[in-house]
């Protein structure tokens, strides 16, 4: 599912890193200080709008949203209709 990976990378690089594209798929947004607190909410908006999924409150976890890899996996699970909260 490369398109999701590219889309998320582009979204982060364009909106938060402003072109500085040295982001690995497993780079933690938190550790690198890439997103501020409202930034995470914008990211969630973007995911919901682009992929027509609803990110539930209990799914808003670094485990689902803190790396490109995690986000891809999360979206794929949701799209497969088999998303489960990691915390469960």
């Amino acid at each position, binding site marked *: 599912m490369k398109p999701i990976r590219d889309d998320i990378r582009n979204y982060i690089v364009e909106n938060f890193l402003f072109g500085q594209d040295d982001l690995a798929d497993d780079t933690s947004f938190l550790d690198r200080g890439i997103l501020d*607190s*409202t930034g*995470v909410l914008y990211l969630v908006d973007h995911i919901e709008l682009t992929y027509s999924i609803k990110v539930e*409150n209990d799914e*808003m*976890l670094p485990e689902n949203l803190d790396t490109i890899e995690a986000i891809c996996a999360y979206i794929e699970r949701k799209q497969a209709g088999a998303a489960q909260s990691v915390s469960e």
Partner: protein
Amino acid sequence: MCGIAGYLNFKKGLVPSKETMQAMLATIRHRGPDQFGIYLDDTAALGNARLSIIDLDHGQQPMATSDRRYWIVYNGEIFNHKELREELQSSGVAIETHCDTEVFLKLFEKEGPDCLRRLNGQFAAAIWDTREKRLFLARDRLGIRPLYYSFHGGSFVFGSEIKVLASFPGLQLSWDAVALDQIFTGWSCLAPRSPFDEIKQLRPGSYACLDESGLQEQVYWQPSFEVEDPAFRSASETDLIDALHDLLLDSVKLRLQADVPVGAYLSGGLDSSLIASLVKENARGRFDTFSIAFSDANFDESEHQQRMASLLDTEHQVIKVANEDIRDVFPEVIWHCESPILRTAPAPMFLLSRLVNRSRYKVVLTGEGADEFFAGYDIFKEAKIRAFWAKEPESQRRPKLLERIYPDLQNLARLGPKYLASFFGHGLTDTTSDSYSHNIRWTNTRRAKRFFSPELNDAIGTRTSNLASEADLPAEFKHWDILSRAQRLEISTFLSSYLLSSQGDRVGMGNSVEGRYPFLDYRVSDFCSKLPAKFRMRGLRDKYLLRKLGKEILPKDIWDRPKKPYRAPIHRSFFSSERETYVDHVLSEDSLEKCGLFNPKAVSMLTGKIKRGLPLGEIDDMALTGLISTQLLHEQYVENFKAPDPLGAKDDVLIYDSRRRALKN
């Protein structure tokens, strides 16, 4: 109120000349359009641009002692000049004018630099000792009035604003990379640094002596907290409220002295309402109040301002500010601020002082300083909450207190405790760090540095700022509680360098309007330095004692109102037009390349984001303002400094040239 300028030629510098002084003074005509004065001798040139407020017929500067040994140029006010005059007279010193300038000069003649401790005022001054060939420079305790200097080609140059120095022959400005790093971290750079490499500023609460051997600086006052005073420990709450009331009343009365009418700003909040009420109690005759209203309802506070104005029955005048007004006036505001800024809030303040000027007022009282000394800012609450949470880092309940100060945190609460902990728990347990209270803010703001060019980052190198280490914190700081430390750090890194400059002196004096700040009377800050923390902030109740005083004077919806930070629209202002504006020009790839401080590709991504209507975060807005203001300054001061026309025949200029011993017009 005035502006000052001058230079010394010790070695192979510029010979003091009338022409150079006329060019330098012309750059600060706005600070003192009423009269100009120049003193010249073999070594020194001193100049003053005067806005007459006290003793309108006398008080011409430069002013000399009767033996003509000392010459002073001075910008500001000594509010306790009457008391000091009487004291000087009773000790046999002859005083000829009613002007505070003469009091300052004669007190200096008698006591030397120690006299600064006795002045209650807001000032920047230069006193030239013709006998010892020594220049004395001084700034008020809190740095309300500015004073810059530079060593250039064998000359020492000084002035109230950077533009005075920029007009000095041959002085070319370039950016100070570390200053930019500081500005894009904490909103302003700290004295002695200025945004420009060639120019330094005198620290607040300090003086300097300059002679052939060089410049010696000395701090004479520093803000403090937790000063032990048994009287405060044993005082009841009522005693403290009464004492504060008396003190503020006297502070206001001192600041109402003027031979011109005095008005007041009303923001709609507690501090300015309190000041306006105290003015009303003491003002004779007409009393005007002035407010900013915004077309954008998110920023507007008209309702509360109107309520106070009608309650006090003042002649209330309002400047209504639309988004595009901010954009249109911004380049002029930046010309006056002389620093990159990360907020547009100075622009409406400049429009407000223009209204004051057009209403023929020269002096306004305002509420600045109450938040710093009486503990009004959310950042103080954040520090207290984090320190409380740090005692139990695993607690899920403690960080939730942050919701009280961040309204959008209810949204963030969706993110759950892990996210909350990572955003607000950064360095949580490092509670003894000097910068503990401000770390979150500074870490967030630093994201705006993503637009820095590789060249600028290289120039900064490893000198990235820890503002706390440059804030001249006293040794006892480490022993203070978290509230006192947060307040002291805020005062040292923000009050003079940003608030009193970009939202104070510059945007007032830009329209020849002098701001006076009753909360910044040094007796009020001394009072706060002794006031136990629980009277400054109780739990998370900000400005506890000040609100108690407010309760006695003001209606409940004013004294009990939660603080609303004063802010102005940003991206909606700069990008409110379909047609091209200067914003497109200064953010163009061409301009950015020429300036070299920012990465054009990154900037185009930000503007793209704005133009596509995507949601912008706080940092995006701050970065945008920082980019536009820096680019404007680059054009105005670095690339092509355009000095205004020198003083001419139409100006009232008095010149004293001691080489000719003649006074002429």
